[in-house]
Structures are given as structure tokens and as C-alpha cells.
């Protein structure tokens, strides 16, 4: 189980390979990589991500531990960045390894839902017109009810 909260960019492919190589007994590895999308029509200068140092690591560790308890997983990786990110940059990554594919899929999906709505991160969109905090989506909250 590895949890990283960092300002630095990461190489999703290299992380996937390293994680897969270390996941003993796994038959499958699922990864999710989140990317900063530009606004419809363009114009996003940066996505600024604020977080709550200390609580963030604690929350991500809790989610990963819950996933390990709920599904038969070989390993879990979570990386989440903070700071100012350019459009196209990778924000975060989750990877799950499991003997069986459905467990890996469900655990990654579950982790993403918790990351979206229960980990202390806040996004702000910076454009030429100013800065706007991204509002939480009702859909993201509804997604949590699946678990």
C-alpha cells in the first residue's frame, strides 16, 4: 500500500510498471489516471489544487485500507498532486492489483469515488477572467451511495 501526496509531476506509465512488478500474485492491475481537462472552448490557464496537509494522507490511507479490507487485493497505490497544474497535466493516479479482475476494477472505482468527494482537496480554475472554485457535483456524491 503506497500513498503519495505531492506537488511534483509523476510518470503514470513508470508508476504502473513499478506497481505491477511489485504486486505479488496479482492476475490483473487496474489503473486510473486523472487529467486536467481544459474548459469547454479552452481558456484554462491552470487548475490549482489546495489540500489539507496531514488529513489528506490520513484520508487516503483510510480509503486504501478500507479497499484492501473489502476486496481481495494484492496492493493499492494512490498518488495525488497539489499546487498549480496546467491543462493536460496528470492530477492523480490510483492503481489496484488483485488475483481477480472484478476486485481490481471495483476497488479502483471505489477509491476514485472516495477521492472525489471525501479526500480534502479543492480545485480552483484559473482563467484570464479570474479564478473560480470548482463546485462539488451531485453526481459524485450519488456515486458514493453505490458502496
Amino acid at each position, binding site marked *: 500500500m503506497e500513498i503519495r501526496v505531492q506537488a511534483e509531476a509523476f510518470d503514470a506509465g513508470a508508476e504502473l510498471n513499478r506497481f505491477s512488478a511489485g504486486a505479488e500474485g496479482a492476475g490483473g492491475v487496474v489503473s486510473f489516471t*486523472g487529467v486536467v481537462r481544459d474548459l469547454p472552448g479552452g481558456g484554462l490557464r491552470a487548475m490549482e*489544487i*489546495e*489540500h*489539507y496537509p*496531514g*488529513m489528506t494522507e*490520513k*484520508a487516503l490511507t483510510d480509503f486504501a485500507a478500507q479497499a484492501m479490507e473489502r476486496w481481495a487485493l494484492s496492493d493499492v497505490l494512490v498518488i*495525488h498532486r497539489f499546487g498549480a497544474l496546467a491543462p493536460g497535466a496528470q*492530477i*492523480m493516479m490510483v492503481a489496484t492489483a488483485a488475483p481477480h479482475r472484478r476486485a481490481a476494477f471495483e476497488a479502483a472505482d471505489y477509491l*476514485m469515488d472516495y*477521492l*472525489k*468527494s*471525501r*479526500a*480534502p*482537496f*479543492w*480545485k*480552483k480554475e484559473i482563467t484570464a477572467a479570474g479564478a473560480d*472554485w*470548482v*463546485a*462539488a457535483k451531485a453526481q459524485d*456524491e450519488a456515486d458514493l451511495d453505490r458502496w
Partner: protein
Amino acid sequence: MDILYFAWLRERIGVPRERVETGAETVRDLVAELSARDEGYAAAFADLSALRVALDQELSEFDAPLAGVREVAFFPPMTGG
């Protein structure tokens, strides 16, 4: 007790954290105390349904007791991932 603010709440309050001496028994009591300070605080805390609270870095409820708590954080709903 340390009080932390994040995202737009931090911007409205004007500081990321402050230290307060309080006898508030619950989070809701603490919010009432803060809101009584001035209009800025009152406006920031006007709609509690738009806010979340963490006690000692654990998500909690506005009715939760503050006994023994060292760090209270207020913030809008999270938007990670």
C-alpha cells in the same frame, strides 16, 4: 484550539488558520461564536449545508462535541480526483 479554513472559506475569512480560546461544547456552538464576531464570519458560515467540518483531521458533523479536540477545520465540499 486551532481552527483551519480551506478553499473559498479560507479566502472569505482571510486567514488559513487561527488559534481560539473557546468553551463551545459542539461544532455548532463554535460556529455561532465565530459568526458573532463580525459580518465576514457570519456571511462565511451563513449556510452550513455548504460546509464540511473535520475534527482532528477526521470528517465529522456539526453536532459533534468538541471535548478533547485540538484542531477543527472548516471547508466546502471536497473536489479531489
